[in-house]
């Protein structure tokens, strides 16, 4: 019941209210050892600024790149990262787990 990511969702709202285009990434599933728990958030703006974390640094770069796409076309995306998935993604999780990250635009 510990609340997490308190300021990130507030930042998403503030950024949007200031007229920035914003996407929100959320860890929705994890398998094996994963760095951040389900529900962790990353907020991204159209210039690639971001706040929060979905993996403790391993895949944030890739999530930000995908988020820019989502901001542009408005369509949500499900991303998957894991060591077994290196062909699909150039990045992976060093801890050996797999995570699924849902990325959506704040409209």
């Amino acid at each position, binding site marked *: 019941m510990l609340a997490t990511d308190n300021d990130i969702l507030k930042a998403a709202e503030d950024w949007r209210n200031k007229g920035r285009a914003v996407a929100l990434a959320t860890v*929705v599933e994890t398998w094996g050892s994963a760095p951040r728990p389900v529900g962790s958030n990353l907020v991204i703006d159209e210039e690639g600024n971001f706040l929060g974390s979905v993996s403790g640094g391993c895949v944030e770069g890739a999530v930000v790149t995908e988020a820019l796409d989502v901001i542009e076309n408005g369509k949500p995306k499900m991303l998957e990262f894991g060591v077994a998935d290196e062909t699909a993604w150039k990045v992976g999780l060093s801890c050996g787990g797999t995570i699924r990250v849902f990325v959506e635009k704040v409209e």
Partner: protein
Amino acid sequence: MKLDILQSLNSERQARRAVIVVTDVASGKQRLVKAADVAKDPLRPVLAEHLRSGKSGMEQTAEGRVFLTVHVPAPQLVITGAVHISQVLAPIGKLLGYDVTIVDPRTAFASIERFPDVKVIAEWPDKALPPLGIDHYTAFVALTHDPKIDDPALTHALARDCFYIGALGSRKTHARRVERLKQQGLTDAELSRIHAPIGINIGAESPAEIAVAIMAQITERLREEVDAEPAQPSIAKAAS
């Protein structure tokens, strides 16, 4: 996420009310369900379960595969008694992520010098407690040893379903407290929710050690509740 959903989400969190965002991960369609509305939601059982555990997660439902983003308030720690134990308990509570408030009408105790960086209210419980929004996400600890202060505060906490309630005092002191509170109409079942003597048994002697024992017990209750079915319906009951 629509901006209005994000705004309601943030305002519910601000008001210390639990809320769930239901996201259809295939279409991106979303809705926000306030804790008070869970009972009339089509996904009621699964939402109630997630509200209880406080955990977000993916679920297969009649509406398809949905992700439930669960937000429950940060826990707060409310202490009566600006005493020695509180001087250690308050900073430990803060380190563990609690919003800490100390209530003590005795202004000599409740001074800012003794409690830098802690919210201290020098008022009687009947005045100090109602604005704090004591709720299920609150741990309440009574440490004054003074029935005039601790008794009304405990009654207030018991009526608000705090996940942890503890009171300082020996078995004898507590037995007398139970008698007094029973005379005021509280039931055995309610009074059995008070942890007394307070704290897990680590042989604590100094005020600082007692603070550690109390915080350990609060943590135990917090985590038990996340990992197991609660013995008493709490949030689910409040929501129905």
